[in-house]
């Protein structure tokens, strides 16, 4: 596999998710919902690594994409005033995407996944609420929270369909991507309603911890193609070797 083929597979998947969640009134007002390429990459990691990928798995993966779209848009709802038409539609779009996720899973009668995904969605919302309202005690605790928020649904998908060996890589990489993206925008990472923030040193520490975990996981991941290992490092450690 080369990068072109890899990107094509990811873009096909993103296009399919966009088609499944599309609703004309919302598209007219809110435009296209950009889906995260990195999340798509890790969701499709087993497929990209040559694992068998059934039609049912594809539908389930679309459902996970719909959930991420719902999370993304609900995170954009203004914390104090959502009375404009655009904001109102953001609330409803997220609800619509959640409904699509359920409809997709109902269509393949995967009852166990409906339950486990819903448990995870609940946990993610609890984590987001806690982050918004409470001071986080330590770097480790923040890493744990961000791992749950960023990769919880994908981990659930991987574990359900027999791809658990990809889970740890996915978790550390997606958390690392979150910290790196935040860090490249701001030297201080804000994560809470009350203005909770992490110091530059703590961010560096989080990035360092996660980079070590990811590198160790990649070394022991004999099942993963060298090309994908390189791609993961490229995606997840853009700051590696650069002064932070």
């Amino acid at each position, binding site marked *: 596999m080369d990068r072109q083929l890899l990107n094509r597979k990811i873009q096909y998947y993103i296009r399919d998710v966009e088609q499944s969640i599309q*609703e004309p*009134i*919302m598209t007219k007002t809110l435009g296209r919902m950009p889906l995260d390429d990195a999340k798509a990459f890790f969701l499709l990691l087993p497929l990209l690594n040559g694992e068998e990928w059934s039609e049912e798995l594809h539908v389930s993966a679309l459902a996970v994409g719909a959930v991420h779209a*719902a999370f993304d848009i*609900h*995170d954009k*709802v*203004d*914390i*104090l*005033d*959502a*009375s404009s*038409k655009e904001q*109102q*539609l953001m*609330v*409803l779009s*997220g*609800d*619509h995407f*959640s*409904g*699509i996720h*359920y*409809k997709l*899973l*109902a*269509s393949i*009668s995967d*009852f*166990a996944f*409906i*339950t486990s*995904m*819903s*448990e995870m*969605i*609940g946990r993610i*919302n*609890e*984590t*987001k*609420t*806690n982050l*918004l*309202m409470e001071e986080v005690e330590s770097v480790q605790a923040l890493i744990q929270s961000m791992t749950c928020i960023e990769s919880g649904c994908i981990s659930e998908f991987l574990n359900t369909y027999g791809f658990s060996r990809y889970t740890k890589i996915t978790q550390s990489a997606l958390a690392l991507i979150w910290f790196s993206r935040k860090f490249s925008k701001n030297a201080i990472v804000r994560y809470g*309603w009350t203005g909770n923030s992490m110091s530059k040193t703590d961010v560096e520490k989080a990035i360092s911890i996660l980079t070590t975990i990811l590198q160790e996981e990649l070394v022991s991941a004999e099942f993963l193609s060298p090309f994908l290992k390189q791609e993961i490092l490229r995606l997840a450690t853009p700051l590696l070797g650069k002064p932070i």
Partner: protein
Amino acid sequence: MEKLKLLSLYTGFRKDLTFIEKELEKTVDSSSPVIRQASLLLLRAGGKRIRPIFVILSSQFGQYSKENVAKVAVSLELIHMASLVHDDVIDNSDVRRGFETVKARWNNRIAMYTGDYIFSRALVSIGEIEMSAVHQLLAETMLEICKGEIIQIEFQQKIDQTFRDYLRRIKRKTALLLSSSCELGALVSNASPDVVRKLKRFGYFAGMAFQIVDDILDITSTDEKLGKPAGSDLLNGHLTLPTLYIKDEPEFQPYLVRSFYGTLTDVERGEMLTYIRQSGAIERAQRVSDQYLEKAIAEVEMLPDCEAKKSLLQIAEFLGQRKF
């Protein structure tokens, strides 16, 4: 008085309802202190629990399983609750049923997360039922409700609306979930297809009547009884059946425009409500509700005789005439 009357109608299935109430509390119990508090606030604010009741009664036309019925009933009530939490964000409402809303107590983001959390718990509850038809129906219902809300926003502050537009809106807003409550209750207890169909239609007609009465009460009731300002529908830019009848009257138009654009004073709100009450629009809307109620009753009349049938008839009549 009215609430007591409703409670007396629930006597026959009080045990099941208490069981469901406990399951509701268990299902939304959260490790997050804020979500736990918010969920309990919502549960304690109460409500008529019409959806669980319709599930309980409909399921008695088949092989009744308390556990399965509770899973469906809990799920439907939670979906309803989650949608109210998000509605309060959309409508910027600070009070519902006399209680502070989640968005007012905390903020919009917490309301979004709480709503999403409750919604996820609804799916956890129903996920345990391994029946494709149940999930497909519920998923379709949820999407239709959402579409209804989107259409409602499209119609917000628009005066150029028809009777049909209104009926389509309330179908999605209320009638569908009540119709699905009956259908799901019957499905989960393996009632015959004919019974399922009749109960589904009953729920739909009763739901239409219920929403029309709700819209009437928004005008005829008091702030105290409603637990929010009377006339809130107009203040939020929504035309309802009574106001659709008089929207073109020159005396009413200035009130309508000012309420849609948020410039109506409290004194003017009182004058506007008096005007609507005296215009004859309430009686006309009540007649439409009565017609739906008659259709609902006609569907139940065709069902096999049993206690649940009697209860459905009594509750339907109550819903059409209720004062809260």
